[in-house]
Every structure is written in structure tokens, then in C-alpha cells.
């Protein structure tokens, strides 16, 4: 990847990680407050943004889950770097 392209790729990945983290955090709150409407609303908003962003991230890093969101080539699961190998 070119430098500028790499910057963009990592920025998208970090944004995806932020959204995933927000989803995890709100999920835990909802576990003990399942009917909190504000938290339900936040949770839906964050998971929706996450869903929209993931195909863009996968263009650069390959599938993020073993059954991927986008129609990326499955061979990229093997070929791309693993989370402990990336330089964030």
C-alpha cells in the first residue's frame, strides 16, 4: 500500500475499533439495564455505523471475521496480517 492509502486504511480500522468498543461498552450496560431507552438508542446507532464501515475496512485489511461482511476474497483471511502484527 502507498503511504497515503495506508494512513487512510489505518484511520478506518481505528474508527471501526472505536465503534466496536462503544458497542461492547453499551452492551454491558444494557445487560443490567435492558430497558434503558437512551442506551438502546445509542446501541442501535453505534452498531449500525459499525455495519456500514466494516466493508470499507475490509477492502484494505481483508475479512475481519471468518464469515465476512463484504464479498472480499476469502483467501485474504490467510494472506493479510493478524492483529498482533499490525503497527497501529
Amino acid at each position: 500500500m502507498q503511504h497515503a492509502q495506508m494512513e487512510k486504511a489505518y484511520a478506518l480500522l481505528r474508527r471501526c475499533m472505536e465503534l466496536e468498543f462503544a458497542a461492547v461498552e453499551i452492551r454491558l450496560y444494557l445487560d443490567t439495564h435492558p430497558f434503558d431507552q437512551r442506551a438502546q438508542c445509542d446501541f442501535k446507532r453505534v452498531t449500525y455505523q459499525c455495519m456500514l464501515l466494516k466493508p470499507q475496512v475490509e477492502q484494505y485489511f481483508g475479512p475481519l471475521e471468518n464469515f465476512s461482511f463484504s464479498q472480499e476474497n476469502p483467501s485474504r483471511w490467510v494472506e493479510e496480517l493478524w492483529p498482533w502484527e499490525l503497527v497501529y
Partner: protein
Amino acid sequence: MWIYKKMLQHPIRIEKPDLKIAKFLITQYGGPDGELSAALRYLNQRYSMPNKQAKALLTDIGTEELGHLEMIATMVHKLTKGATPQQMIAAGLGGHYADHEKALYYVDANGNPWTATYIQAKGDAIADLVEDIAAEEKARATYENLINMTDDPGLIDALKFLREREVVHSQRFREALYLVREHTKGGRYYPEIQETKDIFTNTTNITPDDVLD
């Protein structure tokens, strides 16, 4: 069923290898209050929880702990990258090198292997959730100790993040403990509580409700 996500929960930025802190950090991988203990404790205790919220919470926190285990592994992996056997010996990791080369292994800061005796499952939701709150506080304290032992800003950032997660988990477990107590007040799920209540009311003026709340 679990699905692996090819991303860390929080980015790990390690500037330079540091074997000395790696030796201590490994305790959060395979030590008594580490992430492996946490994940296995919660994912195992959820089957005997009486209420919906506690089952959901133990599942979700247990899963998050597996993500934290991966963060610790990534830190140790990056901190030990490129180290020579002589450098490992100098950092007090000679024994680790002899047994595991530079592979990760579930040990505490002194090299003791992980053991199931670090965790408990009592089949009593109140006993288990109190253990879980204590486990989170012990992990928080360990992260504070580790933060005091390094000046690497990238490492401190990741350790602060993990410390904060322990604080949140402790809070959620306290809420679950309250919910379990409310849920079991009628003695519907814990008939033995009714017996305990009789003992209390027959011998003292204190009721279980006073003690619990």
C-alpha cells in the same frame, strides 16, 4: 459458539522491546488475577446464574476478557521481539527461554503455570458474583502496579485502558449482584434462603434483608 474478530479491542503501540516489563506483564496473561482466569471464570459461572441479566453479563464480560487476553499477548509478543537468549537471561527470563523459547505461555510474573485453583464456581450466584467483583478489583490493582513499573507511553496507554475496563466490569457485577438478590428475595429459586430467613428471625432481630441490603 464464538466468532473470532481480526482486530484488537484497543490499539497496542509499543515503541521498543522491554524484556523486564514483559516478565511482569505476563502475569495478566496467565497469573491469578489475569485475563485467562477472568474469561474462564465468567464463561464457566454463567450456567448456574438464576436470572437473565447475570447470564447475559457473564457471557459478554467473559467474551471481552478473551479480547483482553489477546491485548496482553500482543504486548508481550511485541516487547520480546528480537530478544537474544543472553538478553532473556539478563532480564530474568532464562527459565522461560529454556522451557518455551520466546513463545507465550500461561504463567504469572514468577513463572508459575496457570492453575484452575485460581478460579471458583460455587453454584451460588451471590458467592460467585462477589468473587467476580473481587477479581475485577484485584486485576485493577495489578494494572496499577504494572503502570508504576514502566515509562513507555504506549504501554501505559494500553494498561490504563485495561484498568478502566476492570472498573466498569466491577460496577456491572455490583449491579448484577443487586439484581440477583432482588430476584431471589421470594426464595423461589433458592428455597434454602427461606430456611436461613427462619433461623435469622427466630434468633435475632436482624433479617436477611438487613444484612443483604
